[in-house]
């Protein structure tokens, strides 16, 4: 089977610097139509930046980009769009106040004379949804729908523009395991239809399964490009991290079954969201909270932290918890929220302030904040977490997505909590860093801390948890442990309520 290969895009000697930061340097690359081309690399390797150069979000600081053999300079994404180059960005770029329809149709409304033809626009969007079999409620406000649906809106927006090239920047970071396969099928379908696809992901299995070509980036430099068929999981890990990594998951020590639970939840309910949830976590135990998207896992976690009102009993360290979030944090809870941009970070504030936000009391004295000690402890914590930064005074926004996630981990770890609630803690984190976060979780557990782990990655739940509580439609549908803890048992329980 030999198909003629068309080169769509050629990059020669492309580089990009932000102020003093060199994001990319000397990249030579060609992108072909009808192929899925993967970019892999550590957090901050320059994958997103490379994608953004291609779709005109940034202009390259050096080098040339040629489309169909002719050099192009894009002054804005609008110009790249005109050439059929479309991107789906890593951080959702939607208008939360507007409807799904408005978000998808933006810039592609069907016109009748000077006016937008609302009915025809709707029909056009509906046609795209039907063609790719991806349905979203068109009249919902984007801010009101779950992240998964928002991700679909982003993808539909790209699909609705007759693109020649689509950049998918970590599309599955926000998707649960069961939604990945359809997306990969979609990606293949697009390539089959003659489009060029660039696919960025930290999930190496996806890369191996669905892509034709792999480009490995490290520290802004091009390491190698080759056919996916000649790569294996091990070669990719080696290429990405520059070293050989052992097992993906660390050794998990068994907790002391005799100890009294750190956290006891009894009959926790929040009408319409979850009902009658009861479970315990003992010191040193990692308990997974599994379920389908929208099953209420995050809501249960928020209620435990005190962020949402709920009825029922929560006992912590054998005593009552305070009502406020501050009281519960002070008592030794910590949480990594699921949406780092909206619920976790102050994106324009310095890294140091982001890390210590929950712990200022401990740096406060009669003379105010002890900023020297604060910096020392943050530096130490960042090292322990493997966070890569230039200066602690840089805003969180200057970090790559994965490193932003590590800020939240550093914040939680700084408090030395008795209970860590980690909601999707490795979202968008590279393979090497993932392992270091797993190590941190395992290390905390080994030191007798209790962990409540929420993840939409089944493997992660299976690889780390001692015990898994499965929620389905807001109710506990099962508790799995030891030999019973298998992927199929988990999925059966998760679907039981539907």
């Amino acid at each position, binding site marked *: 089977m030999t198909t003629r290969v068309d080169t769509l895009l050629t990059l020669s000697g492309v580089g990009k610097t932000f102020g003093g930061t060199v994001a990319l340097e000397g990249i030579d690359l060609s992108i072909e139509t009808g192929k899925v081309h993967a970019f892999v690399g550590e957090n901050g390797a320059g994958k997103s930046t490379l994608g953004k150069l291609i779709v005109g979000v940034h202009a390259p600081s050096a080098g040339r980009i040629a489309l169909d053999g002719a050099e192009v300079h894009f002054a804005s994404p609008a110009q790249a769009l005109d050439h059929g180059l479309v991107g789906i960005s890593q951080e959702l770029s939607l*208008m939360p106040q507007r409807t799904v329809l408005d978000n998808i149709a933006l810039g592609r409304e069907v016109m009748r004379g000077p006016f937008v033809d609302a009915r025809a626009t709707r029909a056009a969007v509906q046609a795209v949804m039907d063609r790719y079999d991806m349905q979203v409620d068109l009249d919902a406000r984007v801010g009101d729908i779950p992240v998964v649906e928002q991700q679909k809106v982003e993808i539909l927006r790209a699909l609705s523009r007759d693109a020649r090239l689509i950049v998918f920047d970590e599309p599955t970071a926000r998707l649960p395991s069961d939604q990945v396969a359809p997306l990969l099928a979609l990606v293949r379908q697009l390539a089959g239809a003659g489009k060029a696809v660039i696919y960025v992901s930290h999930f190496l299995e996806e890369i191996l399964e669905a892509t034709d070509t792999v480009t490995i980036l490290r520290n802004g430099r091009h390491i190698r490009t080759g056919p996916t068929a000649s790569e294996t999981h091990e070669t990719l890990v080696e290429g990405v991290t520059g070293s050989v990594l052992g097992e993906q998951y660390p050794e998990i020590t068994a907790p002391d079954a005799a100890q009294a639970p750190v956290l006891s939840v009894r009959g926790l309910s929040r009408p319409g969201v979850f009902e009658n949830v009861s479970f315990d976590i003992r010191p040193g135990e990692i308990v997974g909270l599994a379920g389908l998207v929208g099953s209420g896992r995050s809501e249960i976690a928020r209620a435990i932290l005190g962020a949402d009102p709920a009825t029922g009993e929560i006992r912590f360290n054998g005593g009552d918890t305070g009502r406020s979030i501050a009281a519960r944090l002070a008592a030794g809870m910590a949480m990594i929220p699921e949406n780092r941009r909206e619920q976790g970070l102050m994106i324009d504030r310095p890294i140091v302030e982001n890390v210590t936000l929950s712990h200022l009391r401990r740096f406060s004295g009669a003379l105010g904040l002890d900023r020297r000690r604060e910096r020392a402890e943050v530096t130490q914590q960042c090292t322990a977490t493997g966070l890569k930064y230039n200066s602690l005074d840089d805003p969180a926004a200057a970090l790559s997505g994965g490193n932003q996630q590590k800020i939240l981990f550093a914040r939680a770890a700084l408090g030395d909590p008795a209970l860590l609630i980690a909601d999707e803690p490795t979202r968008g984190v590279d393979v090497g860093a993932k392992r270091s976060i797993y190590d941190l979780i395992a290390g905390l557990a080994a030191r007798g801390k209790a962990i409540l782990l929420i993840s939409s990655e089944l493997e992660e739940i299976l690889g780390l948890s001692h015990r898994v509580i499965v929620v389905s439609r807001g109710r506990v549908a099962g508790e799995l442990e030891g030999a019973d803890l298998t992927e199929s048992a988990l999925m059966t329980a998760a679907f039981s309520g539907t």
Partner: protein
Amino acid sequence: MQRTILFAKTYGILVVTVLLFVVLALTTEGFFTDRNMRNILDQQSGVLIAACFMTMAIIAGNFDISVGAVYVATPLVALLVENATGSIALGILAGLGAGAVMGAINGIAVTRLKVNSFIATLATSFVFFGTGYLVSDRSIMRPETDGWRDLARTRIFELTSATWIAIAVVILASVLLTRTRFGRNVYATGANREAARLAGVATDRVQMITFVLLAGAAALAGILGSSRAISAQPSDDFSFIFAVLTAVIVGGTSIAGGAGAIWRTVTAVFFLAFLSNGFNLHQIDPIWQRLIEGFVILIAVSIDAWSQRRSG
């Protein structure tokens, strides 16, 4: 019942305004009369014209303080040309043109110099107010032609021409905002500028146009004002922009941009007009009036804020 509640939630400010209207109509002699209603429409015409386009500029993510100065300065330019040429049309053209230029200056300051719109238009306010003093040579200006007073005061089917112009502008602005691609782009620019840019919207141009339209509308309002008063004079008066901003914000258009509607602003203009008309008809003591007005506005916006909240 379910539907009634949903309606009340979406249209909080409208419900409050209708309520106020009904209460006044039932309790206040002279309120619900032809003439009083016509007067209110005529009185609010200038604010309505500017407030519609202020709504648009705020939805696009920008403030414009200079509207007060444009309102004061442009009719002076218009009268200068009218006095010199004796032509009403040229006078109007000059006034509107001056408004458009002022709007373009604001737009350049915000999109090119990347200055925050609040402070940029505050600075240009000084410039425009100063222009008004220069143009008028510090004195009251009066039209040469008799026709100038007819611009705002001609009666057509019982309503003044100013009222009709305001109605036309409200409809035009609403159509522009809700039915055209430009309107979509206005919302997109204010909701998430970066996202809009990624989707191919020329966000700078969108903002520029909203500034020019707004200043043009303020110039129109100013010219109509000079027709009602058969004169214009320079001042540093911020009361016009104050009335315009109050209406837009009481209406519930978000100052964060990306959300809001012209019907909201129009409703709020009438809410505030009914309130002070009611005070006048009821002969409320001016001192207590301030206190009551403050509390009533606070209650109205609380209800609207509550109704706009998702999980109220």
